[in-house]
């Protein structure tokens, strides 16, 4: 009966999905005139859970499915971001708390203690060697960019490895898509900055969807060569968007993840609907943030609509 796991959590998540913002709500928010109107629309959603932080959502999901091995993979990006933040804060004698993002699988104090004491085994397995390597690298070279690219690539590899270990095809696809999005972006930046093959080798992760060697070869030939390579892959639409604007490409990246989440909408059991709800909530919070920034800077309705991420409901 393993295929009926998390029936309780999925039931709860399905009930909570009713309070996610819909397209109509987003349209109303875009058309709203002031902050008071925005707050009232958000509050009017049943349960007003739109005001929840992602940490609350995470805590709730973990309470319903504490033994779920797939869910923590969703936070690997945050974990590795926090590792970067703590390393830099320690090196520059700054307070790491302000750069720490939540939710995360690793508490700030654990991260700081492990790095300060160099006892990396206090960290989760997937971070230990990366933390050690990145610390050595940044203290020896003081090159933040190099250590960042090492950590970013380690994050993607850790995601791929954990997703494969837990055998979830949904999480494998999730890790795969995040890797593709990150690799295309890195290859594009490298081609603009004229980075060499050695740097690209250390910054591009590679996946079964997008071959690392071919991507590096294309990026070494400049942006046009990169675009023409991408046009021949399943990610030709990403290449078109990246040519036009980085913002549109970022939206595309978020939308492909949402399309993956949508595949879990019809599932009655398993960890997929839980992961999909977290992804949906993440997108909703991002949409509200974009909306609020756009409103603050007086962006027109078309611009805001264009930037809104795909919704789950």
């Amino acid at each position, binding site marked *: *009966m393993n295929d*009926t796991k998390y*029936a*309780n*959590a*999925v*039931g*709860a*998540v*399905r*009930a*909570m*999905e*009713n309070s996610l913002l819909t397209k109509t709500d987003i349209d109303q928010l875009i058309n709203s005139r002031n902050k008071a109107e925005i707050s009232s629309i958000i509050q009017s959603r049943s*349960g007003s859970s739109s005001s929840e932080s992602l940490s609350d959502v995470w805590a709730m999901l973990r309470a*319903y499915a504490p033994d779920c091995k797939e869910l923590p993979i969703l936070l690997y990006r945050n974990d590795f971001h926090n590792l970067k933040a703590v390393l830099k804060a320690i090196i520059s004698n700054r307070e790491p708390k302000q750069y720490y993002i939540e939710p995360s699988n690793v508490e700030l104090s654990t991260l700081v203690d492990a790095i300060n004491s160099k006892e990396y085994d206090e960290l989760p397995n997937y971070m230990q060697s990366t933390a050690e390597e990145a610390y050595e690298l940044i203290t020896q070279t003081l090159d933040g960019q190099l250590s960042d690219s090492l950590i970013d690539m380690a994050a993607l590899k850790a995601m791929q490895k954990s997703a494969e270990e837990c055998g979830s095809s949904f999480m494998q696809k999730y890790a795969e898509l995040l890797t593709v999005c990150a690799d295309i972006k890195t290859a594009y930046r490298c081609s603009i900055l004229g980075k060499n093959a050695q740097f690209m080798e250390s910054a591009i992760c590679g996946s079964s969807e997008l071959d690392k060697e071919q991507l590096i070869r294309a990026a070494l030939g400049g942006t046009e060569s990169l675009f023409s390579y991408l046009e021949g892959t399943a990610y030709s639409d990403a290449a078109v968007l990246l040519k036009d604007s980085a913002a549109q490409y970022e939206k595309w990246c978020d939308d492909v993840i949402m399309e993956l989440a949508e595949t879990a909408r019809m599932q*009655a*059991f398993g960890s997929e609907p839980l992961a999909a709800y977290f992804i949906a909530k993440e997108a909703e919070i991002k949409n509200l943030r974009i909306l609020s920034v756009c409103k603050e800077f007086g962006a027109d309705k078309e611009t805001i609509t264009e930037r809104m991420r795909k919704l789950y409901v």
Partner: protein
Amino acid sequence: MTNGLVLAIIGAALAALLAGIGSAKGVSLVGEAASGVVSVDPSKFSKVLVLELLPGTQGLYGLIAAMFILLRTGVLGGGAAELTVQQGLGFLAASLPIAVVGLISGIMQGRTAAAGVSITAKKPDHNGKAIIMAAMVETYAILALLISVLMILNIAV
């Protein structure tokens, strides 16, 4: 007590046992899903309760078949019949349709009803559709009960 009677009693026990296990598994699965919904939205309790009850019927069918066997063999009446091995095997075989189908359909109906809980959670107005879909599985438990009862009633004692 003859060997035949022992076989008939085993048949009654199997009908009640396997169909009961199927129902228990089915009901518990729907209960899990329903509790999740109710923990977020308690107003949906009555709607999800109907879905939770559906896989419970297989256990009841198993009980009916077992009662028929016990009545036909006189175990319940106090004057147990002297059954031959052939007669005993007949009762045992008659119990199998509801025992096996009850077990499997109870679990499967539980899955369907638990999936239906999601419909109720998201679109409470469509609760009836979730009930109909789960009730479809019931057909096969009813057919199995029917054949078990017909066999039990027609074994010459």
